[in-house]
């Protein structure tokens, strides 16, 4: 569940990085320092989330029980053409 309630937090960052952030914001990279930091953190969090999902999906791709459910569903809806489709690729 997403929340747009803003909270003030304090972090310590290297001075040269802060200089680059200020420069980037002045250059129009984001409407404010807070927005720039929010964008950067959100992008990093999304990468972490994506990697966790990728690990789960790679596991699913070799899970025989999961694959059997896919096969069963596709046979039920599509008429048992899943193997042929795989072989075509």
């Amino acid at each position, binding site marked *: 569940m997403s929340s747009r309630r803003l909270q003030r937090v304090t972090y310590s960052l290297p001075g040269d990085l802060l200089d680059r952030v200020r420069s980037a914001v002045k250059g129009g990279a984001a409407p404010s320092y807070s*927005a720039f930091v929010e*964008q950067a953190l959100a*992008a990093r969090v*999304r990468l972490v989330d994506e990697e966790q999902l990728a690990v789960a999906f790679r*596991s699913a791709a070799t*899970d025989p*029980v999961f694959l059997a*459910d896919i096969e069963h569903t596709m046979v039920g809806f599509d008429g*048992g053409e899943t193997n042929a489709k795989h072989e075509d690729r």
Partner: protein
Amino acid sequence: MSAHQLQWSVFMVEAAARGRGADTSRSPVLVVSRESANNALPVVTALPLAGMKVGRRIYPNETCLPPESTGLDYPAVLLAHQIRTVPKSSLSTRTGSVDDPVLRAAVRAAVRIQLDLDADISDRFSMPVNLESAV
């Protein structure tokens, strides 16, 4: 069609099993498309349900649904990665309904993950597209 709303209802879907004679298979699905679309269109969007097997791992694009909700006689795994568009005419027996808000949230989460529907932070800060200049 029954007087019940279609969205969040579990139906058996009849699908012709092509290539295997004239068999007709019946598979349970949960209808997830919004009701205004369900009312207006000849099709619905549905997520197939599979029977829960012992030791079955539940992946992020799936969730479990209990027999009390689905009306099936077994716990089910909702397969958001197997999303289907099905004709309303293929919906047969209505077996149950997912009314629990917690279960609905879990279904929505599985769909959001499968379809990557989470709002991206970049969407909030992206510059408006000038459609006229793009034409």
